[in-house]
C-alpha cells in the first residue's frame, strides 16, 4: 500500500511539473502583451517597458520559467494582472465556491444516478428501464449551458420558486469564514437563515452541473448491476431462500460497486470542466468563472494558477477513489 501511494505521488509530481511547463508555454503563446493589457491603451511606451521589467517579462524565456518555478516551490503563484492581488489569495477566495458547487452536483449525481440505475436494472426491459435509459441519453447529449439557462428562466424569473444567480441573496451577509463553503459554515455557526438561503441558491446550479454525470452514472450502475445479477452466486443466494432485499443489497449491489466508484472519480474531472459553464451562467464566484474572465483579459498568471490547482484536484480525487476502493474491496488491499 505504502509503495503504491509513493509511486502515485511520484507520478503526481511529474505531472505537475508538466502541467506547469504546459501552462507556462500557453502564457508565452498568448498574443497580447500582459503589461500593455494591464496598463491600458493610454500607457506610454516607457511605462509599459518599466512594468515589463518589473514583471520580469524582459528576461529570456528560460529565465522566466526558472523564476516562475522557484516562486512556485514557495507556494507563490504570482500576481494577477487584473485583480492586482496574489493569485494564491484569489484562488483561496474563489475555490470554496467551486468546491461547494461541485460537491453538491456530485451529491445530485449519486442520489439520482445510483438509485435510478438500480431501478432500471431490476426492472429490465420494462417502461421504467426505458424511461431511465431515455433520461440517460438526453442527459448525456444535452448542452448544459442551455439547461442552466432554462432552469434559471423558469424557476427563478417566471415561477420565482428559487433564488437567482450568485451564492447568497445580496441582502444577506456571508457566514463567518471557516471552510468557505457557505452551507457548511452556516451550519457550524447555527446561522439557519443563511443556511436555507445558500442551499436554495445551490439547487439550480447543482442540478445543471450534475445532469451530465447523472446520465453517465446511471448507465454505469445499470450495466454493472445487470452483470452481477447474472452471476451464479446470485442464483445460489436466491436458491438458499434469502430475501430479495438481502440478495440485491448484500450480493449484487456490493459487488457492482467498484466500477461505479471508479466512474464517480472520473466524473469529478468532468464536473470541474462543466463548472466553467455553470458558473458563467449562474454568476457563481468560483474558479471556473475566475478562469473565464482571466482568459478573456489575457491574465495568464491567473490562468496558470487555476490550471495548476485544477490539475492537482483531479488526480487527487482519483487517488481518494482508489483508497475508497480498498475499503470496500479487500482484494485491492491485499494486492
Amino acid at each position, binding site marked *: 500500500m505504502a509503495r503504491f501511494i509513493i509511486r502515485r505521488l511520484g*507520478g503526481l509530481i*511529474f*505531472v*505537475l511539473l*508538466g*502541467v506547469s511547463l*504546459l*501552462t507556462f508555454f*500557453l*502564457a508565452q*503563446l*498568448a*498574443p497580447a502583451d500582459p503589461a500593455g493589457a494591464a496598463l491600458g491603451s493610454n500607457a506610454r511606451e516607457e511605462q509599459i517597458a518599466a512594468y515589463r521589467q518589473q514583471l520580469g517579462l524582459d528576461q529570456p524565456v528560460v529565465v522566466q520559467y526558472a523564476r516562475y518555478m522557484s516562486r512556485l516551490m514557495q507556494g507563490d503563484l504570482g500576481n494577477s494582472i487584473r485583480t492586482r492581488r496574489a493569485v494564491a489569495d484569489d484562488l483561496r477566495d474563489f475555490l470554496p465556491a467551486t468546491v461547494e458547487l461541485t460537491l453538491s452536483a456530485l451529491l445530485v449525481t449519486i442520489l439520482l444516478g445510483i438509485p435510478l440505475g438500480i431501478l432500471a436494472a431490476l426492472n429490465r*426491459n420494462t417502461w421504467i428501464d*426505458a424511461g431511465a435509459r431515455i433520461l440517460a*441519453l*438526453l442527459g*448525456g*447529449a*444535452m*448542452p*448544459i*449551458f*442551455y439547461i442552466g*439557462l*432554462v432552469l*434559471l*428562466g*423558469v424557476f427563478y*424569473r*417566471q415561477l420565482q420558486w428559487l433564488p437567482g444567480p450568485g451564492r447568497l441573496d445580496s441582502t444577506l451577509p456571508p457566514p463567518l469564514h471557516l471552510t468557505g463553503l457557505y452551507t457548511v459554515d452556516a451550519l457550524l455557526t447555527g446561522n439557519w437563515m443563511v443556511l436555507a438561503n445558500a442551499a436554495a441558491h445551490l439547487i439550480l446550479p447543482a442540478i445543471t452541473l450534475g445532469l451530465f454525470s447523472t446520465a453517465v452514472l446511471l448507465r454505469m450502475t445499470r450495466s454493472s448491476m445487470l452483470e452481477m445479477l447474472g452471476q451464479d452466486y446470485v442464483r445460489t443466494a436466491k436458491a438458499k431462500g434469502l430475501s430479495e432485499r438481502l440478495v440485491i443489497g448484500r450480493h449484487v449491489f456490493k459487488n457492482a460497486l467498484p466500477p461505479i466508484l471508479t466512474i464517480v472519480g472520473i466524473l469529478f*474531472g*468532468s464536473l*470541474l*470542466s*462543466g*463548472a*466553467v*459553464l455553470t458558473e*458563467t451562467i449562474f454568476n457563481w464566484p468560483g474558479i*471556473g468563472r475566475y*478562469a*473565464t474572465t482571466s*482568459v*478573456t483579459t*489575457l491574465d*495568464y498568471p491567473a*490562468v496558470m494558477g*487555476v*490550471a495548476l490547482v*485544477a*490539475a492537482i484536484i*483531479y*488526480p487527487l480525487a482519483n487517488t481518494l477513489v482508489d483508497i475508497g476502493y480498498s475499503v470496500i474491496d479487500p482484494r485491492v488491499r491485499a494486492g
Partner: protein
Amino acid sequence: MQATAPAPTPAPPIQSRRIQSPTALVLRRFSQEKTAVFGLIVIVLFALLAIFAPLLAPYNPLDQDIPNGLAPPSPEHWLGADKLGRDILSRMLFGARISLTAGLGVVALAALVGSAIGLIAGYVGGWLDEVLMRVTDIFFAFPSLILAMAIAGALGPSLQNALIAVAVVTWPVYARLVRGQVLVLRDREFVQAARAVGARHGLILRRHLLPNTLSPLLVQTSFDMGTTILAVAGLSFIGFGAQPPTPEWGVMISEGRNYITTHWWLTFFPAMAMLFAVAGFNLVGDGLRDVLDPRLRR
C-alpha cells in the same frame, strides 16, 4: 432493445449460411440494433441538411430584417426569427455545417495524432513509451474545458482556434487506447510470425497492428463526435469559439440567452439540434461497441 429469450425464430435465410466477410457480419449485427440504426439515421439526416444547407435554407443566415425581430414561428419563418430578424431555421441549417465539420475535423486530427503516438509508444516500448505516456498523463490531469479555454484564449478567440484547442485535449485518449491495443497484439502469434519471416517494422505496424486497433478506434470516434460538438458549442457560448454573427449553435444560444422564457424559439431549436446530433452519435457509438466488442456480445 433485443429480447434475450430465444424467440421461436423462422428458419434462417439461406443467405446467412454463406461465409460472410467480417465487415458484412458487423453491418448485419449493427442493423439489428434498433437504437443504433435510429442514431445513424439521425446523423445521416443531419449530414444531408448540412451538405444541402444553401439549397434548403429559406433565407441567408446573416440577412437581418429588424422590423421582423423576434418573430415567432410562422409560415414565413418556420422556426421564428432572432432579435435581428434573422431566420432561425436558416441559421440552424448552416450551424449543422459548422458543428459537423468541426466534429469531423477535430476527431480526425486527434485520432490521427493520438493513434500515431500510441502506436509508436506501444510498439517501441521502453523509455520512449514511458515518456510518451507520462506526457498523456499531463493532458489527462487537466479538466478538458479549462485547458481548452486556456489554449483558445492564448491563440485568440476564433472557431479555428477552438477546434485546435479541443483537438489538443482529445488526442491523449487515442494515444492510450491504441497503445493498450498494441501492447496486447505485439506478442500475438501472427505478429511474431510476421517478424520471423523478416517483415519490416513499418509493414508490421501498417498491415498487422493498425487494422486490429480500428474497432475500438471507431467506437471512440463516434462518442468523441458528440463530445466535440458540445465542447465547441460550449467554447463558443462563453466567447472563445465561433464569433457572432456566425450561425453556430453555441453562438445562437448565447445570443438568445436573454430571451429564453419570453422568446423560447431563439434558443430551443439550436439546443434541440445539438441534442439530436449528439444523441445520434452516442447511440451509434453504443451500437458499434456492442457489435464490435466480443466480450459484450450475448
